[in-house]
Each structure stands twice: as structure tokens, then as C-alpha cells.
């Protein structure tokens, strides 16, 4: 009914949009969200291939990707909170020196 | 025209079921508010609403009219899109969760448009997991409402309330795992069927085959964890600090006026109903009767309850003080008697109505306990609430999972 290539093209488009958001946005939280968007695009590709090949390994890997994304978001947002506290700004262009 | 109907029969029947379910749900919500006010009032030794219609039965109509006609101001400085989105999100998600709940085992005795019509809009393979997904998204309604109001009390109330909701969500989902291990499926119909085939103590059936009394391990711990966590999840007493009047003005819905407040209100009562449905389905056998299936004389119990209560309503109505009461109440009583008599005279309908009758009575019992707790128990303080959720409920639900798994292995299920 729906060929796998449709899902892969959608995954590529979402990944590209994630890269664009990563490059162009200046708020560090929005950059984090673009990383999550890229991970989601990759998850879509995994599930599409898992269905196409008839194996469930792709879906198991999707679960692992989700778990790793959760851990990364937790620690990353902790770092973001520290940056905001120390530099009073969430703009990545102001966080370009190691010294305050 | 008819061929179009028959070709898309499934879609049309589902749409009709959705509309019917929404209408029934809104009516039940309205009369649940009446029930709560009357019950809390009687617990506090006073009468509840009793002026607006016989026994205050038209009070929900008056409340609805008030919500529709009151002024709906939008405070300055709010984030307009999020301010308008939050109550919609809350209400929409709360209403969606009713779609997953099955209300009866058998399809309707008649075929409609050539299809068997089951009582339940969607029976998902991942039934209970889908319900948890919808509950997980419900946190956003409250967090966004608190934040977008651009005011400190709603922000504090919204953050506290959503932190409470995500803490108790974990305990709620873990406490259900025992039932899932026993039933072997996520689907709610399969969970009830597993309880139908279980045998309790001494092989007795009926009430002793429900999840809470039977199976490899009676799920008493799981039930208490689930019920307490679900009450905290729905922000009801005694866990309602984030929206208590004396603490935070009105919490996250301070800045919301008539209709948007009504949407939060309806969302809260609908999630109460959903939690009661879940408790009765997961732990108390759903639509299974407490009597063993071989005691078919208990099939007359619905009529036995309806007819005397209908006669009592007629008798009470004829002595009522206002003229409206003397007209409406006997009408309601006569309707109840007529339904009870119809059930005795039509055995096919009686057999069909057994399942939904028991499920609805169990839901009613849980709603009664919900309202009873609101009228009786004092509130938790916020830090007590959080430590209760993380330090007591979550470990207890994990212990329940381990014990159930151990019992399954040991007893060889």
C-alpha cells in the first residue's frame, strides 16, 4: 500500500529540517530540540526498515534510541540550566569563551 | 444512498458512537457535579443544591448557563495561543481516553447496517498503554495553563501540579504491571476475559475470580497503589493542593474565566470517570458479576433494583413541595419502573444488559469513594505529597511487580 521509500523520504526531510534548525536557531534550548527532531527522523527510518525487512530488531533499536535521547536530554538540560545561571543568557553566541 | 451507508458502515457507526459517547459523557459529567455537591453537603450536615428543580436536579443546567453567559476576560500579557490552547488540550485529551474503554462484552442484539456493534469505540491491542499515553499528554494542559497566565500564582500552581502528575504517573503505570503479567495482554477486553477464566480460592468463581482476589497473586497492593496514584494524577482531594482555594487562589486556572474554566472542570471530572472505569476493569472484573456465572437467577438483580427505587422516587415525588417536583419526580420514577419491567419481559435484552449494569455500578461505587474522600480527608502538604509518591508508592508498586512475577513463576501459570 505505502512503499517504504515514502517513509524514508519523509525521514530525510525531517532530518534536513532538524539540521537547518540546529544551524540557524540561537537559543540553546531550541538547538537541543532540533537534536531531538533529528533523532526522531532516524527512528522513523528504523521502524520503516524493520517493517520492510520483516524483523523486529529495528523496533528494539528504536526503544534504545528513545532511552538514550531521554538520558541525553536530562543531562543536557542540566547543563543548560547551569549555563543560564552563570551567564544569564540562553543565546549560544554569547557562550563562546571558556572564561566568563 | 443505502449502498453508500453499507459500504462505509464501520466509519458511520464509529462516528455515531463518538457523538453518542460525547453526549452521554457530558451529561454524566454534569450530574456527577450534582452528585458531588449533594454528597459532600450531606457529609457536612447540610443540604446541597435543592432549590433549582426537585432535589436540585436542574442545578447542572443552571451552572452550564452561568458558564456560557458569564464574561470571559483575557488578561493582559498572556501568550494568546498557548492561553487558548491549554483548556482545549486538557478537555480533548480527557475526552479521548473514554474511547478506549469497553463497556460491555457482547455486541448489541441487533445488527446495525450489517455490522455487529460492540459497546466501546476502539478496542486497541495496546489498550491500557494507549490510555497511559493520553494521560501522559494531559500534563501539558496544566503546565501550559499555569505558564501562559502571566501571573505568579498560576505559574506556581501549574508547575506544582504538573510535577505532581508526572511523579504519580510512574507509580500508576508500574502498579498495573501485575495485572498485565497475569492477563498477558494490554487489551482491556483480554484483561477482563482473563479474570473471567481465573479461579479464586477453592476454585470459586464470581467475585473471587477478580484480579484483586485471584490469579497468581491477589493484586491488593497493586490496587491501592493504582487508586492512590490515580487520585493524585487527577488532582483530586486529598492531593489537590495545586488547585486549593486557600493556598494558591485557584492554582493553575486562576486566570481562566467562565467557559475555559468550565473546560478544565469537565476535563477533571472526565478523568475521574476514566480512572473509575480503569479501576473496575483492571482490578474488579469489569463487566463480570460478583456472583458465579451458574447462578442465572441473579440476572434479575437490575430489575430488582430498578423497580423498587422507581416506586420510591414516585412516592417521594408525589409528596414534594413544589409543583415541578410533583410532576418531574414521578415521571423519572415511572421511567425507572418501566425499564425494570422491560428487562423482566425481554430476556434477550436482560442478558445483554448484565455486563454494562455491573460495570456501571462498579464505576458508581468508585466515584462515590472519590467524592467521599473529598468530603472527609484533609489535604497533603506539597512536600509530603512528593515524598509519598516517590518514596512510598513507587517502591511499593515495584515490589508488587516483583512479587507478582515471582508468584507466576512459582505457581507455574
Amino acid at each position, binding site marked *: 500500500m505505502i512503499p517504504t521509500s515514502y517513509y524514508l523520504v519523509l525521514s530525510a526531510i525531517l532530518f534536513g529540517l532538524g539540521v537547518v534548525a540546529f544551524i540557524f536557531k540561537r537559543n540553546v534550548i531550541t538547538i537541543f530540540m532540533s537534536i531531538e527532531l533529528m533523532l526522531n527522523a532516524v527512528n522513523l527510518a528504523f521502524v520503516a526498515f524493520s517493517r520492510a525487512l520483516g524483523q523486529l530488531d529495528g523496533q528494539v533499536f528504536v526503544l*534504545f534510541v528513545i532511552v538514550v535521547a531521554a538520558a541525553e536530554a536530562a543531562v543536557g538540560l542540566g547543563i543548560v540550566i547551569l549555563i543560564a545561571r552563570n551567564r544569564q543568557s540562553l543565546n549560544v553566541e554569547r557562550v563562546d569563551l571558556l572564561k566568563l | 444512498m443505502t449502498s453508500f451507508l453499507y459500504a462505509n458502515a464501520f466509519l458511520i457507526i464509529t462516528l455515531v458512537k463518538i457523538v453518542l459517547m460525547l453526549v452521554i459523557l457530558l451529561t454524566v459529567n454534569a450530574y456527577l457535579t450534582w452528585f458531588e455537591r449533594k454528597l459532600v453537603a450531606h457529609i457536612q450536615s447540610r443540604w446541597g443544591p435543592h432549590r433549582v428543580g426537585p432535589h436540585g436536579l436542574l442545578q447542572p443546567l443552571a451552572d452550564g448557563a452561568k458558564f456560557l453567559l458569564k464574561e470571559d476576560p483575557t488578561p493582559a500579557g498572556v501568550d494568546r495561543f498557548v492561553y487558548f490552547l491549554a483548556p482545549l488540550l486538557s478537555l480533548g485529551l480527557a475526552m479521548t481516553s473514554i474511547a478506549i474503554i469497553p463497556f460491555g462484552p457482547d455486541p448489541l442484539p441487533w445488527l446495525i447496517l450489517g455490522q455487529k456493534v460492540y459497546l466501546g469505540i476502539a478496542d486497541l491491542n495496546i489498550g491500557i498503554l494507549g490510555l497511559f499515553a493520553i494521560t501522559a499528554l494531559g500534563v501539558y494542559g496544566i503546565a501550559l495553563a499555569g505558564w501562559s497566565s502571566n501571573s505568579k500564582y498560576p505559574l506556581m500552581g501549574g508547575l506544582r501540579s504538573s510535577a505532581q502528575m508526572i511523579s504519580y504517573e510512574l507509580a500508576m503505570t508500574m502498579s498495573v504491571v501485575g495485572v498485565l503479567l497475569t492477563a498477558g495482554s494490554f487489551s482491556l477486553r483480554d484483561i477482563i476475559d482473563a479474570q473471567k477464566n481465573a479461579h479464586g480460592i477453592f476454585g470459586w468463581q464470581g467475585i473471587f475470580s477478580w484480579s484483586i482476589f485471584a490469579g497468581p497473586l491477589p493484586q491488593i497492593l497493586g490496587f491501592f497503589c493504582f487508586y492512590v496514584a490515580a487520585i493524585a494524577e487527577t488532582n483530586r482531594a486529598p492531593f489537590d493542593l495545586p488547585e486549593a482555594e486557600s493556598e494558591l487562589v485557584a492554582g493553575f486556572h486562576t486566570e481562566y474565566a467562565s467557559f475555559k474554566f468550565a473546560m478544565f472542570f469537565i476535563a477533571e471530572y472526565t478523568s475521574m470517570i476514566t480512572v473509575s472505569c480503569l479501576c473496575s476493569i483492571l482490578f474488579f472484573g469489569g463487566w463480570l458479576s460478583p456472583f458465579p456465572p451458574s447462578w442465572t437467577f441473579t440476572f434479575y438483580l437490575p430489575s430488582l433494583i430498578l423497580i423498587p427505587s422507581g416506586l420510591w422516587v414516585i412516592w417521594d415525588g408525589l409528596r414534594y413541595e413544589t409543583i415541578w417536583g410533583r410532576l418531574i419526580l414521578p415521571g423519572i420514577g415511572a421511567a425507572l419502573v418501566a425499564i425494570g419491567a422491560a428487562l423482566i419481559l425481554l430476556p434477550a435484552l436482560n442478558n445483554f444488559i448484565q455486563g454494562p449494569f455491573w460495570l456501571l455500578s462498579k464505576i458508581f461505587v468508585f466515584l462515590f469513594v472519590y467524592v467521599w474522600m473529598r468530603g472527609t480527608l484533609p489535604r497533603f502538604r506539597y512536600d509530603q505529597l512528593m515524598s509519598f509518591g516517590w518514596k512510598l508508592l513507587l517502591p511499593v508498586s515495584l515490589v508488587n511487580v516483583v512479587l507478582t512475577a515471582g508468584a507466576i513463576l512459582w505457581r507455574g501459570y
Partner: protein
Amino acid sequence: MNAPLLVFFVLAALAVGGAVNLILQKHPIHSALSLIVVMVSLAGLYLLMGAEFVAAVQIIVYGGAIMVLFVFVIMLLNAGIEEHTNFSKLAGFAGIPLALAVTGFIAAAVARSNDAVLSVSQTGAVAPTKELSTLLFREFVYPFELTSFLILIAILGAIVLAQREHS
């Protein structure tokens, strides 16, 4: 144009629309809401492919926990509208066409490929959760335990990072 294809296009349009909105919005909370829309539509796509457990986990974990974390942090840090700085016009001129070109190359390569895998149609058959869990707890039990350890480390890290200094 049958029903599954229509549903696919609707969900795909929602996902792409959400992603574009994430880029176009100035306030991070609106970007977060757009990302939630993307995740829910992706969960719908997983359901369309029959991966129902993954769809439920996506909504519960991604949509109900990770994004809630993002929304909390945005609220607590009081993140405001992005300020307009004059840096990096080069990124604007060279970046967007490059990103579009990369995406276009990948999409074209996928769409033109003759590989048999790519034209296997996604049937509506449902992936049973039981087999998924058997796979997870037998072949993949070692990575599973490692991820639980990873979550523990992440929890400890987040707590240590977010503590205030006791000076």
C-alpha cells in the same frame, strides 16, 4: 488514493509542518509545542506501520516525559523571545540552499533506487508486542541492562548539575 495513503499524507504534512514551525517560531515554548506535534504525528505513522508498542512508547516517553522536561526548563528559565543579532549572514546565504540540497540528494537517491527493499509495501499487519519483548529480553538483554545503568548515571548527573552551590 486509498485510506492509508491519505492518512499517511495527512500525518506526514503535520510532521513536516511542525518541523518547519519549529524553525519559524521565535519563542522557544512555541517551538516546543511544534515539536510535540511532530512527535505525536510520528507516533501516528508508527501506528500506520503496525508498530503499536513503539507508538505508545514514543508518546509516553518522548511526548509525555522528555518534552515535559523541555517545557519545564523553558518555563523555569523564563526563556524569552530570541534576540536578533547580526551575526552569520553567511549561514543564511549558504546554509539553507546547502541543507535543502543535502535533503534533496538523500530523498532523490531513495526515490530512484531500484533496491527491492525500498518497494516492499508497508502492510497493515501489526507487530506483536510479545515477540518484541522476547527479542528485547533474550537477544538484547545486555544492551537493555546497559541502558538502565545509563539512565541511572543520567539521573545522578542531572541531580549533581542542577544543585545550587553550598558555599
